[in-house]
């Protein structure tokens, strides 16, 4: 049974009270709040839509979308895994990529999970290692990369 948007909003308000609910439309919600895992503050936007009961979806497509609004993520093509490590590109606004926070193929998150207990912590950890990446020029936060083979199948490389 997937968590309802009301359950997600309630958990967010309890666990992350400084995250503000910016918008709620039907079964979708958008929050904005500050995360400062190192010292610098990052304004983060989280958008999530609960899939409908009969909707045919994949976790990859339905996952919560997390973007860093301010300060914008700095691209550094010359750094390890640059220009920005572990993100999905955004066609709507290339300066606001979505953070890659878990492995959909490993089933590390699904619609039964509370964002407050998973997504926000993982975004926070992502930002911590991003701060480290800016200083050391090396991504030390682990993970793996899906890459497409010539026949379009996904391959994963552990880093």
């Amino acid at each position: 049974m997937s968590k309802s948007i009301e359950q997600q909003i309630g958990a967010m308000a309890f666990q992350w009270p400084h995250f503000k609910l910016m918008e709620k439309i039907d079964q979708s919600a958008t929050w904005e709040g500050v995360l400062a895992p190192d010292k610098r503050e990052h304004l983060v936007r989280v958008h999530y839509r609960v899939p409908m009961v009969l909707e045919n979806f994949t976790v990859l497509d339905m996952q919560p979308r997390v973007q860093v609004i301010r300060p914008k993520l700095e691209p550094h093509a010359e750094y390890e895994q640059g220009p920005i490590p572990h993100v999905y590109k955004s066609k709507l606004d290339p300066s606001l990529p979505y953070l890659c926070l878990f492995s959909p193929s490993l089933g590390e998150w699904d619609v039964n999970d509370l964002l407050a207990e998973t997504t926000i912590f993982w975004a926070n950890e992502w930002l911590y290692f991003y701060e480290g990446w800016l200083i050391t020029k090396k991504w030390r936060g682990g993970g793996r990369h899906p890459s497409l083979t010539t026949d379009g199948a996904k391959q994963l490389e552990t880093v």
Partner: protein
Amino acid sequence: MNVAYPGPWAQISEADALLMDVARRIRLSKTKYETAETNFRALCQHVDREGSPLQGKVVECYPSGSFATGTAIASRVAKNQHDVDVVIELDVPSDSPPSVILGLLFEAINGDPDSRYHGMVTQNSRCVTVKYTDGTTVDLMPVARLAGQPERAGNLFHYKKDTGETFHKPVNPWAFAKEFNQRVEVDEAFYKSFAGRRLLVEGTLEKAETQPLPDHVPAEEKSPRVVALQLIKRNRDIAFRAAARRNMRKPPSVVLAAIALDAGPVASSLVDEVINVANAIRTKLREKTGTRRAVAVRNPAYPPDLLTDRWPENEEAQALFDADLRRLTIELYRLRNEDLSISENGEILKRLFGETAASYAIDSNLDARRHQMEAGQLQAGRFGKIGASVAASAAAGMRTSPVRAATREGGGFLKE
């Protein structure tokens, strides 16, 4: 999950963890210790060889200074180079002319043009230095035993070619090392923290939980005082790299070690212990009971051996080092007490211990955090602060770490 043992892990502060990482980087590896031992033993055999001007005159050969007290660090960390001080006891009259003994030792090592060490040898005022191709040096200090004195007490030979200054000085490095190693406190809790930190950085923490304190653990892993001395010496080396100090004499390690023996009880935190030892040295420097209006520190195991006979040369030299230690303690207070970013931590460590050690510590801390994260043990405070105290959040019933670890993926586009 790469961490086989999911915790709970011993809690140490981030400042202590960073100093432990620095200490691991500046120390000498076991291999380096073994190589150093092989090198100096070969040297002593070379001095004693058939045809050498000192053939049959070598009584004993043993490391002194940092190598004997477990406080050795690399002199050049990035290149992993180190300097070894060795006493070579010679069967010669203790009142032999210093210029003759030092000259004989130089000739004995330098040998013929085609011999092993030829061209690698320099004669100094109290020792003969051999510099190896990797930059490592061995200082061989000739000593002649004094009759009727404690075990291994002897005269060293001082001769300065440029000024003609010459004298004998009673010393006993062997007795100092023995006393230091007997008196310096070991602490199993510290060993567990130190070893546990390394294993957390490497992602193999489960070993720390199952291995008892082995007998062969070197002193520097068991004693916070020894590690504190290593860090203070590294800070001293960095300060004396400045161009303005190029020809100045550094405070000798043996002086720092002797003062550290009287620094009171060992602190449980490494940061506190470094501050403790630095403050003890600063307090001692205020005594100024020696000649030249400077401090006098004697070998506690053999008081005729004045350890401060060459440093400090004057009050200014002493004041300079006092100011260095003051800066060290202020920076360590910041590291311990303030809410610093990864970058700010790195800058402090760089100023105190140099870029190589600082970068290693920052990388190690990120690796440790990653392994905590992969074990679902990385806690976050208010606004997600990593490494902050999370007691308040936990008390309120809120989660302080995610329900489980996750693997970063990414690449390509998402449907929008």
